[in-house]
């Protein structure tokens, strides 16, 4: 590991100033991804600016009934918070589906958004990788890619974003707040991750030196019937090979509102707008759910080793929406 300087920031402007003074600096949150990447030589910062003591560790209900979550809130605290569990149950489920109890105690919300892909070529410095060394090539396309992208990839990179949390946040229209030397800014999570194109090394819309300070979840009354389901290669403590975050509002058999996002299928959490359009106003039947999944997956461009993901996501969508439709029906009957 390269030697590095370490500074602990006590306020947000101070953190931004420290980082701005050193071109090869990184913010340090929980370190669960960054420290690992420093050990393997993928990341070689000259300075770490520790942001864990910044006053960004609160979860607050906003005036309009949404939530604001500070960037240094740990995954554990986010998942356990009563208002998150009550208002956005799929978010709690998504966070708890990720990593282990130990890692969730360390990892932060801001860091989760910025975690890097677990593509084995990216994490192995002896291999080419366009994300790590622009222009060096992408061995995954002709190599080991069973857990790579089926949507939105490019000939330059087929890596997937590994976050579970981000999938639920995407379904709930989260907004990312960040600060630069010029002041505070915000960007919808939907625009936070850049398209892959020819620049897979440029992952987010954050300007250099920007510090994520938190996320806001707008109110989502339809989120009460929501869930996150994750498929992985063992029962627990593994990254997804496919996941779905969904929320559904069904009345009298007709879909009034639907939110749908996929994980482990693209370089970013994938909002399934085409599927949502197909669902809304239609019947809450397994056939309609499958047709909606197909509407989204028509754009899929699987590789030989990951074509299974198209079927997997389709089946996940049908299963999750069928479950939520039944929940809506029970709620309807109980309030009738």
């Amino acid at each position, binding site marked *: 590991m390269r030697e590095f300087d370490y500074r602990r920031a006590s306020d947000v402007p101070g953190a931004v100033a420290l980082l701005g003074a050193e071109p090869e600096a990184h913010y340090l949150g929980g370190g669960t991804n960054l420290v*690992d990447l420093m050990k393997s030589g993928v990341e070689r910062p000259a300075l770490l600016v520790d942001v864990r003591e910044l006053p960004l560790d609160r979860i607050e209900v906003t005036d309009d009934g949404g939530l604001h979550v500070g960037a240094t809130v740990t995954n554990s605290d986010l998942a356990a918070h*009563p208002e998150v569990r009550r208002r956005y149950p799929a978010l709690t489920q998504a966070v*708890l589906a990720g990593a282990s109890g130990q890692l969730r105690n360390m990892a932060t919300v801001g860091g989760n958004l910025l975690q890097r892909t677990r593509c084995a070529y990216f994490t192995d410095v002896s291999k080419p990788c366009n994300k790590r060394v622009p222009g060096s090539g992408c061995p995954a396309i002709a190599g080991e890619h069973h857990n790579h992208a089926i949507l939105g990839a490019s000939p330059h990179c087929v890596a997937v974003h590994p976050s579970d949390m981000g999938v639920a946040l995407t379904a709930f229209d989260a907004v990312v707040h960040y600060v630069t030397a010029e002041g505070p800014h915000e960007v919808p999570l939907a625009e936070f991750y850049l398209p892959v194109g020819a620049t897979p090394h440029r992952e987010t819309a954050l300007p250099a030196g920007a510090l994520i300070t938190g996320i806001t979840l707008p109110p989502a009354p339809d989120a009460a019937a929501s869930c996150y389901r994750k498929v992985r290669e063992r029962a627990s403590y593994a990254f997804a090979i496919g996941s779905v975050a969904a929320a559904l509002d069904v009345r009298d058999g007709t879909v009034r509102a639907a939110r749908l996002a996929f994980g482990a299928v693209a370089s970013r959490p994938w909002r399934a707008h085409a599927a949502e359009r197909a669902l809304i106003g239609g019947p809450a039947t397994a056939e309609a759910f499958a047709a909606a999944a197909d509407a989204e997956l028509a754009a899929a461009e699987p590789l030989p080793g990951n074509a299974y993901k198209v079927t997997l996501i389709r089946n996940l969508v049908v299963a999750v929406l069928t479950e939520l439709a039944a929940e809506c029906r029970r709620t309807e009957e109980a309030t009738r």
Partner: protein
Amino acid sequence: MAPSTAGAITLTINGEKHTLPVDNRTTLLDALRERLGLTGTKKGCDQGQCGACTVLLEGRRVVSCLQLAVAAEGREVTTIEGVADGDRLHPVQQAFLDLDGYQCGYCTPGQICSAIAAIEEHAAGWPSAVTTDVRPEAGVAPLTPEEIRERMSGNLCRCGAYVSIVQAVARAAEETAQNTSGANEMNVAGAA
């Protein structure tokens, strides 16, 4: 300020203050084992995947292999050496002994530290990935074997002693719950 890649840190470990110079690259795991002689905490994968290095940081379980020592400056650490009350073993330690919650023993310190925290997290009402209804109105799901397996999934045991580990955690959780309702019990790891 001139860059400095090393410095002195103070950690409170098992209730005792230690001040030691460290290179910034030192993990908490290496500081404990190599610098302070606290070799109860084990190095398994050294990349956050096996849980052998689990310790309690400010009462919460973490993997010490991904925790930079310098970033733990000023904080309280509890290791396996600090969970017993003198000669009286922690209920989780006693349950692992009584029920053979191990074979070779290498993962055991991490398993025990993790279990202590997992029992507290459950008692604090935290749901898990196998909790059917995570809404607070649903109340706390009982600590079933399925819940224990999920909550302990960050600790691998390559001997495969999982069956008895689950039994040991279940028994320790029951005892802890009884003792808590009986009050005045020690609280080793602090609040979860």
